[in-house]
């Protein structure tokens, strides 16, 4: 029953998509007609149908309807309700349906909120957006339909990958998708604006909201993903330069650059073409991300299905979109007014341009690191793996000038400013940063790649962003985001320099010394839970003054049979104590890894601050 409802509503959505695509070119030639008529009702029907099919899938998961193949493959009656629901998008088919849902709802919101803009621009945006929706609908219906029926109906499902049973991960994909899909609106509207010749202030003002929304969701999505990696995977870090992580970082760099460019476009009517190129690139990167992650071309936990026909479909779709946008760009490029506004070297425009250059550099590094191994393997049959050292060596040195520019840049005026802005106050802060960094590094006794200049630059940015809160000229949201960023860099650096790790094989009763602490393996007990058994260990970590108890677990899930290690983490404002346990072969010994990670919590807080700046900016613009 649910399967039929889901299937039919998807087919109705497909039909409305085709109708809209056919009708829009006709409507385009009749200038007096308003979009709100038939197309609006078609879009509403489409969204409604997609919402119905999504709800049908959620219900199928909640009531464990194993006549549905997706439910059978990814759920189990013994799973807690929360994970039954999150299981809806914790698999290939369901996650695509979620993509589609967000696509159609965003389009509906776009149609409602863009009434003040020109008809031609709106219809064209709808047209491009519907092409994307059509592509996804075809993809879902013909290669990964979530409503496939099973007969005879199995009694029990096969379960959800226990690694995915985590609260952060349950909301991580939806949030990330909101970001990705937001970029599709930016893509469609930039193409529409290009064709209708309206790449201007008004467009910039309108699209800025969408850029901000996607950027916020993308930032929070990345944050949740890395929180999940830290707490659940138990690798003891927050970023591994894993291709799948990189794939979400690339659109982020691009969006950040786009946001700053849009600011110039709005204020000064400059960089029209660049804004359009960035819009197209951002979306292409988001789509390529989905392709790389889902097709199985990269090996990762996120790869749900290893079905080549699906990969070929997304790949063709992606390249049709990219080629289409390239042709549109080249043939409508001349519609962009190129009024060369007079600008001086020392100005806010230059500062933003510098930001863009750095963003593009970071983007290229990550892009090459992610894609080059794939290309090389295909061409040459060579297997190489690109790891953290590559990224660190290429990004770290360029971080230094980037941070300094970020400190100075925002305080410049538009058009022209005087170079003596770099005044005594800033110089004092700079000297202060040098002294503090020098003393700090001397005490810690660690020198690694560019550590001293890197610390100086990030401390400098930190001081300046704090100082900027007292200046009234710039806006608060920018200050919060920039301050958040400086805090982020600083916490990452301190975390990297001061982190300590100890690893040993221990059995119950063992005691080890590490630095000035004693690690004692006190006890081990077995707990029975709803869908897993756990071995809960109790460790006592004590130094002269106080002691804490850490209780890492090893969980044995029954459906499907999987063993996971749950790290126990004690977070304080200063540092995290991280302890994780691994099973060795049956002789009573366990591998114990204990880490002290200073300022870990500040990494999360700073990313929240960065995103909060964005949220504040939206609220201020529209409220």
């Amino acid at each position, binding site marked *: 029953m649910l399967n039929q409802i889901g299937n039919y509503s998807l087919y109705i959505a497909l039909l409305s998509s085709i109708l809209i695509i056919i009708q829009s070119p006709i409507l385009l030639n009749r200038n007096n007609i308003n979009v709100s008529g038939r197309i609006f009702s078609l879009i509403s029907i489409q969204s409604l149908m997609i919402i119905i099919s999504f709800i049908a899938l959620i219900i199928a998961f909640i009531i464990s309807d194993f006549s549905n193949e997706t439910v059978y493959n990814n759920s189990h009656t013994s799973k807690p309700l929360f994970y039954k629901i999150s299981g809806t998008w914790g698999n290939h088919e369901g996650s695509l349906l979620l993509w589609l849902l967000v696509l159609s709802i965003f389009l509906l919101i776009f149609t409602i909120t863009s009434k003040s803009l020109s008809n031609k621009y709106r219809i064209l945006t709808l047209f491009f957006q519907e092409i994307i929706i059509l592509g996804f609908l075809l993809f879902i219906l013909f290669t990964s339909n979530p409503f496939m029926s099973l007969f005879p109906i199995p009694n029990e499902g096969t379960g959800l990958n226990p690694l995915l049973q985590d609260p952060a991960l349950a909301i991580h994909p939806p949030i990330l998708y909101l970001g990705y899909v937001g970029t599709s609106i930016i893509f469609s509207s930039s193409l529409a604006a290009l064709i209708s010749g309206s790449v201007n202030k008004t467009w910039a003002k309108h699209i800025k909201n969408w850029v901000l929304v996607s950027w916020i969701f993308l930032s929070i999505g990345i944050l949740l993903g890395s929180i999940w990696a830290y707490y659940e995977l138990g690798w003891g870090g927050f970023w591994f330069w894993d291709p799948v992580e990189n794939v979400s970082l690339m659109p982020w760099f691009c969006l950040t650059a786009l946001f700053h460019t849009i600011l110039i476009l709005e204020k000064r009517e400059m960089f029209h073409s660049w804004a359009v190129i960035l819009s197209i690139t951002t979306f292409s990167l988001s789509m390529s991300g989905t392709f790389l992650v889902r097709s199985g071309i990269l*090996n990762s936990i996120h790869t749900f299905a*290893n079905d080549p026909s699906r990969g070929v479909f997304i790949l063709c779709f992606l*390249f049709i979109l990219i080629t289409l946008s*390239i*042709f549109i760009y*080249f043939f409508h490029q001349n519609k962009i007014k190129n009024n060369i506004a007079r600008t001086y070297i020392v100005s806010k425009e230059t500062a933003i341009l510098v930001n863009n250059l750095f963003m593009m550099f970071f983007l290229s590094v990550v892009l090459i690191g992610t894609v080059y191994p794939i290309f090389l*393997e*295909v061409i040459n049959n060579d297997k190489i793996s690109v790891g953290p050292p590559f990224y660190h060596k290429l990004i770290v040195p360029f971080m230094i000038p980037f941070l300094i520019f970020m400190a100075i840049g925002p305080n410049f005026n538009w058009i022209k400013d005087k170079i003596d802005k770099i005044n005594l106050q800033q110089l004092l802060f700079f000297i202060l940063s040098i002294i503090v960094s020098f003393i700090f590094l001397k005490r810690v006794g660690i020198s690694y790649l560019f550590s001293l200049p890197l610390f100086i630059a990030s401390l400098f940015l930190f001081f300046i962003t704090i100082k900027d809160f007292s200046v009234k000229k710039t806006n608060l949201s920018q200050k919060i985001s920039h301050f958040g960023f400086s805090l982020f860099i600083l916490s990452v650096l301190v975390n990297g320099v001061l982190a300590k790790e100890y690893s040993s094989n221990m059995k119950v009763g063992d005691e080890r010394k590490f630095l000035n602490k004693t690690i004692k393996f006190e006890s081990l007990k077995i707990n029975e839970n709803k869908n897993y058994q756990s071995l809960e260990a109790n460790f006592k970590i004590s130094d002269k003054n106080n002691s804490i108890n850490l209780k890492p677990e090893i969980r044995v899930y029954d459906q499907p049979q999987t063993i996971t290690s749950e790290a126990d983490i004690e977070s304080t404002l200063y540092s995290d104590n991280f302890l994780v346990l691994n099973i060795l*072969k049956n002789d009573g010994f366990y*591998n114990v890894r204990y880490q002290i990670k200073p300022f870990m919590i500040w990494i999360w807080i700073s990313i929240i601050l960065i995103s909060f700046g964005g949220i504040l900016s939206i609220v201020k613009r529209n409220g």
Partner: protein
Amino acid sequence: MVKNIKLIAVVSLVIVSFFILLKGLNKTNNYSPDLNSSKIDFNFKAKFLYSNEETTLYELINDKDFSIINIWASWCLPCRDEHSFLLNLKSLDKLNIIGINYKDNEINAKKFIKELGNPYSKIVVDPSGVNSIELGAYGVPETLLVHNKTKTILKKYIGPLDDEKLAELKMIIKNEN
């Protein structure tokens, strides 16, 4: 004209990436070990873990009918997992187990053996990892089954041994007489 050249350049770049990714899709993601034995050179020099003498792997795989070459390291957790399986294999008469200690510290390696038992008849060290890579190793642990007379590799396992692989190994040894 310049515009056209730009367009052609961008589009051809896109098309090239398309075909490369398309081809990449059809490749499997899993490493498939190349069993072409003619490529493998057993004739490299290596030092023993417990003495300073030098030998070649070629000399080591002369004893008995079959040899197992196991590449391991004390820092490698899966190697601990598979150790009990190697100890199990030690009981086979026709088999000679040779360990290659990969990129390891001598003290840790000896501690590892002392703690978990020694399944190997000989252990050679490979501090730089080059010899193991020449043997075609992708990582640790890795296990090769070699037919001593013909010096061919009969089977290669990437990753730790388990019950299934152990049973398979025993089958091959039994059948290959």
